[in-house]
C-alpha cells in the first residue's frame, strides 16, 4: 500500500470539478430520500399511527438518513469513478505524476464518502425542518462520525465492484441485488423483530443494519452497549473493504 498525503490532492481535484455540479447533485441527493420521507413518513405514517409513542416519521428518519449516505457514496464510486477511469482516462494521467495508484483510488474513496456525508447532512437538515432532531449535541457528533464510516465503507465496496465492471450495465447487478435488498432488510422502514429467525440472521450480515441501529440510538438517545458491537462490525468491514477496493482497482489500473 503506497499511500501518502497526496490523497488530499486527488480529493481537491474532485472538489474543483464538483463546483460545477453542486446544484444538480444537491437536488439528486435530496430528492430520493425526500421521496421516501414524504410518501412513507407522511402518507403511510398516517395509517400506521404511532411507533413506540412517536409518529412513524421519527422511526423513518434515522434509517433513511444512513441509507442516503450509503447510496450517495456508492453511486459516486460506481458511476463517477467509472467515468473518470474509462471515459476520461483521468487515472492514467494521475499515476504518471508522484500520485500513486493507491493515492488516486483512496482519494476517490474519500471523495465518495464526502459525497455521502453531504447527502446525510442535507437529510438531517430536512429532518430538522420536519421537526425530527438528534437527541443531543454529542449525538450529532456521533452521527457525523457514523456517516463518515458508512461513506468510506460503501465507497470502498463500490470501488471493488467498479474494478471488475466491463461497463455501466454491470452496476445494475450490484444496485439491484445488493443495495436495494439491503434497504429493505436493514430495518430502515420497519422493525425487524417480526422477521423469521433466518431473516434476522441474514440482516445481521448487512452492514446497513448496524448503521441503522446506531443512527436510531442517535435520534432516540437510547444508547446501549450493543452499539459498540455495531460500530466494531462497520469499522472492521470498512478496513477490509478499503484494502480490497484499493488492491483490486490497482490491478485494473496498472498493467
Amino acid at each position, binding site marked *: 500500500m*503506497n499511500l*501518502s498525503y*497526496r490523497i488530499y*490532492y486527488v480529493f*481537491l*481535484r474532485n472538489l*474543483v*470539478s464538483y463546483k*460545477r455540479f453542486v446544484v444538480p447533485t444537491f437536488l439528486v441527493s435530496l430528492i430520493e430520500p425526500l421521496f421516501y420521507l414524504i410518501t412513507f413518513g407522511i402518507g403511510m405514517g398516517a395509517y400506521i399511527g404511532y411507533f413506540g409513542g412517536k409518529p412513524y416519521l421519527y422511526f423513518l428518519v434515522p434509517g433513511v438518513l444512513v441509507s442516503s449516505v450509503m447510496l450517495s457514496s456508492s453511486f459516486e464510486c460506481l458511476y463517477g469513478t467509472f467515468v473518470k477511469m474509462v471515459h*476520461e*482516462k*483521468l487515472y*492514467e*494521467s*494521475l*499515476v*504518471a*505524476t*508522484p*500520485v*500513486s*495508484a493507491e493515492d488516486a483510488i483512496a482519494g476517490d474513496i474519500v471523495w465518495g464518502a464526502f459525497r455521502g456525508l453531504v447527502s446525510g447532512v442535507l437529510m438531517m437538515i430536512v429532518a430538522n425542518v420536519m421537526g425530527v432532531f438528534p437527541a443531543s449535541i454529542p449525538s450529532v457528533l456521533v452521527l457525523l462520525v457514523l456517516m463518515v464510516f458508512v461513506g468510506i465503507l460503501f465507497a470502498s465496496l463500490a470501488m471493488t465492484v467498479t474494478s471488475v465492471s466491463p461497463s455501466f450495465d454491470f452496476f445494475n447487478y450490484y444496485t439491484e441485488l445488493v443495495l436495494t435488498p439491503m434497504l429493505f432488510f436493514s430495518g430502515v422502514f420497519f422493525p425487524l423483530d417480526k422477521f423469521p429467525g433466518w431473516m434476522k440472521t441474514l440482516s445481521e450480515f448487512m452492514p446497513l443494519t448496524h448503521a441503522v441501529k446506531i443512527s436510531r440510538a442517535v435520534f432516540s438517545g437510547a444508547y446501549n452497549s450493543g452499539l459498540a458491537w455495531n460500530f466494531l462490525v462497520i469499522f472492521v468491514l470498512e478496513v477490509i473493504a478499503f484494502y480490497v477496493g484499493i488492491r483490486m482497482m490497482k490491478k485494473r489500473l*496498472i*498493467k
Partner: protein
Amino acid sequence: MNAIVTAKNLTKKYGQFVAVDGISFEIKKGECFGLLGPNGAGKTSTIKMIHCVSPVTAGTLMVNGMAAHIDNRDLKMMMGVIPQEITLDVDLTVYENLIVFAHFFDIPRREAKKRIAELLKFVELEQKRSSKIDQLSTGMKRRLLVARALLNNPKIIVADEPTTGLDPQARHLIWQRLRQLKTQGVTLILTTQYMEEAHQLCDSIVIMHQGKILKEGMPSKLVEDEIGREVVEVRIPPEDDDKIIQHLSSFSFEHERVGDTLYFYCRDGQELMRRLIELNLHNFLNRPASLEDVFLKLTGRSLIE
C-alpha cells in the same frame, strides 16, 4: 555525454503476450531519442516502463541512476509525460487542469500560478485560460498536454506520438517547442509513426518491430546505410522486372518489388533515370531516400494490424 536511460534485456509481458522482447538500449543525456515502429511494435509499452507507470517484467531499466519502478515517486517528479491519448480533465477549465496538476507535483501555489502563465504563453493558449476542454480544437488540446507535461520543469520528457491527428501548422508548432526544450538541456524520448517527425526531432532512433529492436542509429546514417541516397520508383507490370533489371545491370543498386511498383535503391539516381528514359519508360519517380524507406524495408510493406 553519459547515459540517462539504460535498458538491458528489458522485457514486458501481458499474460502470455510478449510486448517487449528483451531489448537493450541507451539514451544519452540531452538528446532526442526516437522509438519508431508500426502499431503493436512495443514502443508505448517501452516508454510506459521508462516513466514508471508499467512494471518491468524482466531485465533492468535504469533512469537517471535509479531503477524504474511504479512506486518511484522521485523519478515521476522529474519526468514530464505527453500521452498518446488526450487525457485532459474534461470537468475542468484549461487553467484548472494545470493548477490541479501542479498540486500533484507539490508545486507551491504562487510558483504554480507564475509557471502556468509562462507555459500558456509558451504553447500559445493564453486566450483559452478559462475555456472548458471540449471548447478546444485537437491541436489546442495537444498543446495543453505539452504545457501540462512541463509544469514540473522535467529533466526528461516522454512523448508518445505527440502530434497524432494534428494539422501541419499545429504539428510544426509542437516540433518547434520540443526542439526549444532540447536546447535547454532536456532529454526527449519520443515515439512516432511519422518518419518526418523522427527526422525533424531525433538525434538517434531505434526501429522496433514485434517487441524487438531491428536497427538503431542516427536517422540520416540509417537511411544511407540501409537504402542509399536516392530511390527510383518505377510502375511497370511485374513481368517486365527481369528485362529492366538486366538493362540496368551496369549500375549498382538494390531493388525490391512491392505491389505495382519496382523500387531501386541507389547512390545516384540521375544516371539510372537517364537510362530509364532511353528505355522509353515514363511512369517513374526519382526522390531522395527517406527514413520511411528504411522503416518499410525493415518492417515490411504489407499492412500491420
